[in-house]
């Protein structure tokens, strides 16, 4: 019975993540439009796009890996969502909440992109493969400051599980954002690469790579990729809130915190043109890694 409730909770979490992620995507488009002095699409435009894509015919596949590529991506997003605790006290809807920890999370987050990379590789479109190698290169870039920030937290509080870190925040009463500011800065800077918004949108690179790995995927493939992206956005933002902003006890607080975090990469991206791949990598190995190093030093000293 408990398992049943847990599974039900997981499905509800998934739906909430889907809706919130899609809405955030729509708001992103709206905000971008307002910054560019346009009226912009309605905030629910992403839902319309998603439903349209799902109602589109998908008559072709380039082979079994291409067919399964978006499913790989979805697995990774959903697994990330199921590992991240959504609420501090597991409130309204219980999640599955596996016994996993941050290292596991980092690796399960790479599972999907690699599966998708195989799928887009099988299409034989050169743009797709170029996009994939760019994405993997960028990942090597931003994972360094991100892991530095996480390790700083881990060694300071002697736990590697997300729940343990949340408990530590609850006990000390301060958010890690204030108690470990360098780790927070490094993690936020790594987030730019994770979200792949404007200066770091070298993977899909509109007008340059013809949308990169997604270039042969239309219709339902794209629908699954889009919803996976939305769920992933929500999961990542929730993870940041859990780690640095003390978690959230209920939905409005969660939405407030996640949206505040979400604004950072969006607003940064609007004013910055795209980097080249090696510039992006070196950017992440510059100041973000320096802050990560400071975070580790702080954690060792304290």
């Amino acid at each position, binding site marked *: 019975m408990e398992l049943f409730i847990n599974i039900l909770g997981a499905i509800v979490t998934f739906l909430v993540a889907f809706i919130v992620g899609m809405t955030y995507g729509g708001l992103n488009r709206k905000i971008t439009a307002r910054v560019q002095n346009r009226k912009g699409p309605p905030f629910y435009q992403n839902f319309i796009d998603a439903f349209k894509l799902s109602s589109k015919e*998908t008559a*072709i*596949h*380039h*082979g079994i*890996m291409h*067919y399964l590529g*978006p*499913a790989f991506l*979805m*697995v990774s997003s959903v*697994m990330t969502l199921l590992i991240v605790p959504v609420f501090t006290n597991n409130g309204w809807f219980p999640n599955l909440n*596996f*016994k*996993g*920890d941050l*290292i*596991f999370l980092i*690796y*399960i987050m*790479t*599972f999907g992109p*690699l599966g998708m*990379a*195989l799928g887009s*590789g*099988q*299409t*034989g*479109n*050169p743009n797709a*493969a170029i996009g*994939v*190698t760019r994405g*993997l*290169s960028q*990942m*090597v870039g931003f*994972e*360094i400051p991100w*892991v530095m920030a996480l*390790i700083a937290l*881990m*060694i300071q509080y002697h736990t*590697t599980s997300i729940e*343990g870190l949340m408990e530590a925040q609850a006990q000390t009463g301060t958010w890690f954002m204030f108690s470990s500011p360098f780790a927070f800065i490094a993690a936020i800077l790594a987030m730019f690469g994770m979200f792949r918004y404007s200066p770091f949108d070298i993977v899909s690179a509109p007008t340059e790579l*013809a949308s990169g790995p997604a*270039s*042969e995927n239309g219709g*339902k*493939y794209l629908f*699954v990729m889009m919803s996976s992206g939305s769920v992933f956005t929500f999961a990542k933002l929730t993870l940041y809130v859990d780690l640095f902003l003390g978690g959230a006890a209920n939905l409005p607080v969660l939405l407030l915190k996640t949206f505040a975090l979400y604004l950072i990469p969006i607003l940064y991206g609007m004013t910055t043109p795209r980097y*080249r*791949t*090696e510039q992006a*990598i*070196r950017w992440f*190995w510059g100041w973000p890694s320096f802050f990560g190093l400071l975070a*580790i030093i702080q954690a*060792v000293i304290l």
Partner: protein
Amino acid sequence: MATLYLIFIIFLGGAILTYYAGKLGSVLQDIIFLATILGATSLFYAGVHINDFMSFNPGGITLTWGINYFGWLFSLIVLGLGSLAAVYSVGYMKGKKRRGYFYFNFILSIMAMLGILVSQDLISFFIFWEIMTWSSYLMVIYNGKDDQKLGLKYFIFSAIGAYAMLMAIVMVHSVTNTFLIGNMIEAYPQMSLSWQIWIPILFLTAFGVKAAMMPLHVWAPGAYSSSPMAYTSVFSGALSKMGIYGMVIILVTMISHLPQGIWFRETLAWLGGLTAALGTLWAIKQDDAKKLLAYSSIAQLGYIITGVAIGTELGLLAGLFLAVMHALFKGTLFMVVGAIEKQTGTTNFTEVTGLIRKMPWTFFSALLAIIALAGIPPLGGFVGKWMLYEALITSNHYLLVILIFFASTAAFLYCYKFLFGFFMGQEEKEWEHVKEAPATMVVPMVLMALFMAVLGSWPGIILNPINNGLVDLGFVSTYKHLWDTSILFNSWGNQVVLKPLLYSVVAIFVFFAIVLIWKGFKGTRYVSTKDISSSGEVPGENENLTFSLGFAQPFLRAVGPVMKRQIDRYYTEFADGLESFFEFLRRIYTGNGQTYAIYVFVFVVIVLLFKDVLF
């Protein structure tokens, strides 16, 4: 205990019989070869008891053979991978030249590795070590010629290692008057400090060569890529583990007694980390699959060395688990390359593309092996990686863990390159004729791939023997406090539960794979890789659209400064320097009697001048 003799007699006799059976018929040769390996393997697991030692005295020296739990763990790698590779070899060597030579050396290698594991004294250890080196050297020069001096390089480094080991053995004997490993370990704490430092260094040099540790790794890319692929899977999978085997024994039994042991550990751990990082970067650069896997082997052995060197329980567990995993996935990957080489005739990524629909089973095993290599759950590689990270973090190696993390993230690039280069991309007309490899080659690969998938959820299968081996070396049992059958703990008490993870990954995957397209896979139509959105242009038959040249160029540009110089270059410069030094020495002998007279005169003058100082 006579079974052990019998096993070695079977190995030796089988090797000689196989060599000469080639004259009678190739099928007979295959059968004798397989019977030797498989027969000896089954005899070993059926008839040899653990911790049952026997001694004999040829020429007044006491030699002891027998196997303990720790050796038994490595025998799993040697004999398991060895028998699968033997089955694979039968398919691989079909229609190739010098089969007798290959089979003979193959059997000798397996025998030598088993001999290393069972020998409890330094003399037989050294003899088997040399047999292993010789047989693998003969495999490296299998093609008959040693044009690029790859075999020579391997042999020189092995010889350096062997001399180091021999020197250490002589030093040990001069103190203890015995060759038994047990006695050496017992006597070690009573030795003088300088000997306590030098003996491990000499041993570690010998083991570091075989384990391809930086800076002793330069032989590995050439040797791994020039020996036949069926043997390379054993070479990289099992033979390199002999270095790890020796290293663990030295580290655990000797260095932990040493007060300054922490320096040994830290140096080794950092060397391992650097090996991992640089090996990964060089692997990304390779366009040849053999070279790529060779560098990747070096990198993976770097992880193992790091795990073993930090020396905590979790670190040793991680290192040894990764050793088993490495034997599995790197064995599989070299077999995959061998299958592709046999079917297409080349192993270059820029030539072969789009084999996924022609060689589906090869792709399947390559995919699982790559997932395990990259350390992505739910396969076994993740278990090892997780334990390694947790071991590093909980034992305060903060910068090392970032280096290791960098290496394993960058490894995704070459992982993708391997899969994409061979199996993905455009399907060219040139490779239309390619068929799936024969069953004898496919079955071992798929078996190993499936075993890796099983280990991802039930790592206890391998962690149990590792635990027994560690207990044998003097550790407390780690069962239930660092791992359970499918649960992993770190020393802070955090845990990862693996089994439900597997179930949910599979469930979610199946769910979305079905939902993805309402009509299902059959409802969609296959379109060829020429039917892509290329601005409306239809690519011609011979138009190559595959992206394989300069694969990760931006990344390599970003890390360019690190890769400017190869360590190989330093060795070459050292050799050149020696050569010019000897050239200078040679000038002394001019062949002119007058010059020699001057030498004599100068010598006499110097002796007279400095006679007070000198005498």
